[in-house]
């Protein structure tokens, strides 16, 4: 099979393609924190995870009074949906109220990135109640990720979300 894709490009074509690449990296560059967010999200101790995709990210509330706005994010995995509502608290921190569906008592881990890219991540762990609710209060702003683990180290699937910026 002839394949003109493997035919050599002349220098003009190469220069044009190089310029196309350069101009795109000027007008539509990846966000500056994209590499960091990916590296944080995949730096997991156990890589056997089901991915819960971000399907909805809503800001609800009065725009005039920004402090009363809540942000609701829904993550959807094959086995479970995670919904979290976040609100800024007056002390400059974040309160996160979450629900798991189907509801279950599970260990919910909130991984938080260190203050600098080299600082180790920290984790807070809570257990959801029978109705699937969980709360993290007094959370610092920054890069975070939710992981849901079985209560016993059984065979139930672990679920991981992409990182989100609190």
């Amino acid at each position, binding site marked *: *099979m002839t*394949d*003109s*894709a*493997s*035919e*050599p*490009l*002349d*220098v*003009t*074509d*190469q*220069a*044009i*393609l*190089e*310029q*196309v*690449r*350069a*101009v*795109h*990296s*000027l*007008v*539509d560059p*990846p*966000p500056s924190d*994209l*590499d960091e*967010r*990916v*590296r944080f*999200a*995949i*730096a*997991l101790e156990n*890589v*056997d*995870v089901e*991915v819960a*995709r*971000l*399907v*909805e*990210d*809503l*800001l*609800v*509330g009065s*725009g005039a009074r920004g402090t009363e706005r809540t*942000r609701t994010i829904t993550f959807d995995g094959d086995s479970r949906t995670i919904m979290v509502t976040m609100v800024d608290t007056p002390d400059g921190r974040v309160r996160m109220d979450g629900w798991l569906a189907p509801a279950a008592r599970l260990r919910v881990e909130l991984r938080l990135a260190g203050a600098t890219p080299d600082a180790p991540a920290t984790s807070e762990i809570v257990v959801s109640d029978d109705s699937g609710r969980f709360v993290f209060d007094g959370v610092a702003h920054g890069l975070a990720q939710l992981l849901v683990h079985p209560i016993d180290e059984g065979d139930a699937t672990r679920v*991981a979300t*992409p*990182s989100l910026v609190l």
Partner: protein
Amino acid sequence: MTPVSTDTTPSAEAGHDDRRERLARCLERARSGELAALDEVVRELNPLLWHVARAQGLTVDQAADVVQTTWLELLQRLQEIRSPKALAAWLVTTTRREAWRVSNWRRQHKQEGTEILESTADRGPEPSERLVEDERDRVLWGHFQRLSERCRTLLRIVAQVDRPDYSIVADAMEMPRGSIGPTRGRCLAKLREMLLADPGWSSS
């Protein structure tokens, strides 16, 4: 007038081989449990994945989430992927599928009455040309915008990959591998014709 030759730039080919070897070593280390070795692979391939997601019409925030989701999904597949080329192909295919899933979900769940966070951050698929300061870049960007959407998408992605890896472009575009070359040829010829006819580009 720019001289036309059929220079195949051997140094670029050598650079490609070096890069591929480096990525192969990183992949090997990651598969044996050293996940930090993926950092370099992330740095190398994120721009390609970004442009694949954006070329599907996703917002900045959606594209960033899709790229992350793709890497997370890779974790479970790491043991099955043997070469940097297979890795790039798998990542591009997954990015495209995830991007499609997002735009499809969005079409089905158009929210009304709530303020959607993305609407504030959404720069849309057409990036701002104010950022292009160099005159020659501006001329190219102007002509590039006049190409068909298919040509813009193809050239945008082709420009991100080394030439021996055009099968990755086929994955990204959902096009048969054999049609990438001819399509690229037509799109590039069109752009080149416009550029060479424009004194703002060809005389400098």
